[in-house]
């Protein structure tokens, strides 16, 4: 792959369709038609023709309303969903020249476990309530082939401390934690294997405002300390403004605009982005 | 060093065998005739045939005699016998419209074409101990039979009845049978993965243990994943069986078997978007006269097809099919009677170690104070 800048993640032509599909699916959906449902066959075109580079140490925001395809996009990249088309490359995998989507499920598992971290909106998608907080972090380490008990303990303790989970709660079950605490356990777990790439999917949605602020601060600090590249999905421009260096705007499954976050917020080019920005102000 | 390990298993087993025999006959009464069991313990025999999955009333009755009335033990004996029999033919699909019914009712309709036929049922009798049976003699029975002159099995009734469900289907109120995998799989000769094809699901249910199936079906209708069933139709009667023989062009009649069939109409299905809502069907069929089993089977068949995101136990195919087999369940529950002292020794080793570690950490804490 010829690369202009050093990319961490490169995505080209990503498409995801639910339903049987027909030849008109892509032609008759998108912002121009204000829908992602194909009028001919009823299939849902959740994502189509999405492409971008995520650069080293960068936070890329993905913004859009519900149904725009932003969550589907990260779920595809984390292999929770199978793509319908397109390619993705990780600099840390196969020298950036191997299409991740074409790999076997075992290889995909390896990539997920060793090279990616994920934080879902619902903490219980990312952590298991019947494992202890430490056990959840341990799980990520164990999948990344760390088999030294003392090392696992130490790393789990330091990560949980870093995400402000008291050391005394390390061996408790997250089922009894508050939503904000569960979310911080999930972040600790996502960071456990030192991934070069982290996905954050609406991580503050559903949390109290004060808790939201603390979680966002935490993400920002971690990014500064560790320099991890992040893909941050949110419907909330406030979150995007606070975290993202660059931002991509999604609408009806298509990417309508991408650029520096400041520029997107101050001088939106696409009509839909303008609407989005103005509705926030 | 006077210890002698406990052995002598052979002698003990032989002695236990003898004692079983002794306990069966020690009362000194006239030995039970197998025919008596077959005729007068009809429902027990039917249950054993169903769970043993072999239609053989005399052998089932014999197994009941041998097992001193323990129906799971008798089913087990019958099933083990079945495993030694070659499978020479597969019958053609039976047609329950051609059933010679002895009983046929519907709970969903007041009246049905052909009429509700109550038949031999205890449903509307009072469960009072009938002390007159203490004095039942052959002469009394003979007198009753002469006086009653009851005609059964189709002589007084027509040869065929239409199905209630086919009427509903004709009116577009009931969904059509699912297409899916219609091949016939033999669960006794093939190992299958989940999800089971429908033929395998129904086979597993048909040889399931009545009590286990009833408990799961009960859990469903009581509220854990209720499918709101109605009893569309319950039939008990004799169906003719045919096979194909290479030497004959026509199907060959091989005999008739008594079966119970239940068609459970359930709340209309969740269907695909945009399709017309329709009622759906659960199907139950088992050997002999066993209404609770047929109804439970119908409920479970439908419950397992539930598309609910959060599955109740009775809706989880793997949960239901792995736990209703009486032979498997009874074997594993009973196996705890086998010696386990080697593994128990291993458990004790771990427990002592865990206790020692707890003591050590307590000591360490108290030293730290």
């Amino acid at each position, binding site marked *: 792959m010829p690369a202009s800048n050093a990319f961490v993640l490169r995505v080209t032509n990503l498409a995801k369709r639910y339903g049987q599909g027909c030849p008109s699916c892509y032609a008759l959906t998108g912002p121009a038609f204000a829908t992602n449902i194909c009028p001919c066959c009823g299939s849902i075109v959740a994502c189509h023709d999405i492409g971008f580079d995520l650069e080293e140490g960068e936070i890329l925001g993905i913004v859009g309303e519900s149904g725009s395809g932003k969550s589907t996009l990260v779920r595809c990249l984390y292999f929770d969903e199978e793509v319908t088309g397109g390619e993705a490359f990780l600099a840390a995998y196969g020298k950036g020249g191997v299409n991740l989507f074409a790999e076997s499920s*075992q290889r995909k*598992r390896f990539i997920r476990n060793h090279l990616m971290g994920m934080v879902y909106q619902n903490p219980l998608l990312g952590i298991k309530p019947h*494992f*202890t907080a*430490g*056990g*959840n972090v*341990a*799980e990520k380490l*164990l*999948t990344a082939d760390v088999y*030294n*008990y*003392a090392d*696992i303990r130490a790393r789990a303790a330091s990560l949980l401390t870093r995400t402000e989970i008291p050391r005394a709660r390390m*061996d408790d079950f997250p089922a009894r934690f508050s939503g904000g605490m569960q979310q911080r356990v999930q972040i600790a777990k996502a960071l456990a294997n030192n991934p070069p790439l982290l996905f954050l999917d609406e991580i503050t949605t559903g949390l109290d405002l004060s808790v939201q602020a603390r979680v966002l601060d935490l993400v920002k600090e971690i990014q500064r300390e560790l320099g991890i590249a992040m893909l941050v999905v949110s419907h909330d421009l406030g979150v995007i403004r606070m975290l993202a260096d660059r931002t991509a705007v999604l609408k009806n499954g298509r990417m309508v605009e991408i650029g520096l976050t400041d520029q997107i917020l101050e001088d939106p080019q696409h009509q839909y982005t303008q609407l989005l920005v103005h509705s926030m102000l | *060093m006077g*210890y002698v*390990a*406990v*052995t*002598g*298993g*052979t002698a003990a*087993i032989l002695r236990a065998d003898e004692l079983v025999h002794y306990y069966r006959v020690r009362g000194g009464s006239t030995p039970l005739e197998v025919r008596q069991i077959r005729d007068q313990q009809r429902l027990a025999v039917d249950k054993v045939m169903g769970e043993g999955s072999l239609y053989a009333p005399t052998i089932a009755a014999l197994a009941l005699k041998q097992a001193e009335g323990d129906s799971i033990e008798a089913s*087990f*004996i019958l*099933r*083990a016998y079945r*495993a*030694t029999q070659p499978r020479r033919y597969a019958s053609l699909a039976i047609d329950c419209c051609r059933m010679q019914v002895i009983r046929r009712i519907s709970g969903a309709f007041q009246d049905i074409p052909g009429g509700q036929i109550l038949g031999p049922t205890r449903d509307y009798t009072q469960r009072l101990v009938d002390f007159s049976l203490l004095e039942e003699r052959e002469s009394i029975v003979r007198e009753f039979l002469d006086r009653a002159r009851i005609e059964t099995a189709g002589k007084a009734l027509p040869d065929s009845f239409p199905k209630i469900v086919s009427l509903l289907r004709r009116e577009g109120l009931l969904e059509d049978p699912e297409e899916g995998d219609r091949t016939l799989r033999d669960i*006794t000769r093939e*190992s*299958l*993965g*989940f999800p089971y094809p429908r033929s395998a699901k129904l086979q597993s249910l048909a040889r399931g243990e009545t009590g286990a199936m009833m408990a799961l079906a009960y859990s469903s209708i009581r509220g854990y994943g209720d499918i709101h069933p109605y009893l569309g139709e319950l039939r008990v009667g004799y169906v003719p069986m045919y096979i194909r023989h290479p030497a004959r062009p026509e199907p060959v009649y091989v005999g008739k078997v008594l079966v119970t069939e239940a068609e459970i109409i359930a709340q209309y299905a969740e269907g695909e978007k945009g399709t017309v809502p329709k009622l759906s069907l659960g199907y139950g069929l088992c050997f002999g006269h066993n209404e609770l089993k047929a109804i439970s089977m119908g409920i479970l068949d439908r419950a397992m097809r539930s598309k609910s995101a959060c599955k109740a136990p009775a809706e989880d195919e*793997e949960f239901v099919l*792995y736990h209703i087999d009486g*032979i*498997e369940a*009874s*074997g*594993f*529950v*009973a*196996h705890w009677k*086998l*010696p386990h002292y*080697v*593994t128990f*020794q*291993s*458990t*004790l*080793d*771990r427990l002592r*170690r*865990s206790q020692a*570690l707890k003591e050590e*950490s307590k000591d360490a804490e108290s030293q730290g104070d």
Partner: protein
Amino acid sequence: MLNLKAIERKGGYNFAFLDENTKREIRRKTLKAVAIPGYQVPFASPELPIARGWGTGGLQVTMSIIGPDDTLKVIDQGCDGGVNAVNIRKLLVKTTGVGTTFDTAAASIIQTRHRIPEEPMSGRQILVLQVPIPEPLRFVEASMAKTREMHSEMDYSRMWVFLYENIVKWGEITIGARYPSLVNKRYLIDPSPIPRWDVPKLHMAETLYLFGAGREKRIYAVPPHTSVEPLEFEDIRFRVEDFSGKACVRCGSDHTYMNEIYGGPGGGKLYVCSDSSRCDKLRAQRGEAKTHAGK
């Protein structure tokens, strides 16, 4: 060891009870199990006149591989004389007429429940283990459909977390028997409820180990010269049962798996070999030695 021509009907039943087609099917599944060490091969598991959970899987495997020239040994808890061993031996002898032995070294097929004999075995022998629960992941996941998927992706992280949390809670892994072990660096197996003491015997062995789970309808195998590694952390190792300072009251052996029995004077504790035939052998040898010394 199987000579089809020599097969004859015994007591109204086919040689070794099962019909030839069924045996062939089980052998096919067994070969597959040998070809993919540690992989649980589903099979149809015909009914036997022995209850499910009482050794049917082991019996099915033994019945499908046994021939008239075999010498059979059957043990339960390491003992040839236990009621279940006797019952299983009785069925096999009744339907095959093969010769039996208590001597581990003299047997060509050994069917066992919960133990692997203490005496080393050779490449000419097969050990058939009876398995109640073939799924090592049952500790952490009840659904077979899900565990199948976890095996296919070699996703054993939940088992590892189970072990991690064991240590957090108890200071050490508390699994006694049925210790989860990785075969050929690929598939995790439940080695059947053998004590941890016996697990190292599976590793790079001379003998073929066949595992039959009748009720659960699975066959799996550890072929000779195949690695079998109990799951352990780099710093918290797998440990076998501790019998230090104990010796068998019958043969005096102090390096053997022992049963502890409340049998001493005043309800005191006694230790006795679990492997009864080795214990007897040692006693016989000691007897001979005495005779020699007496001359």
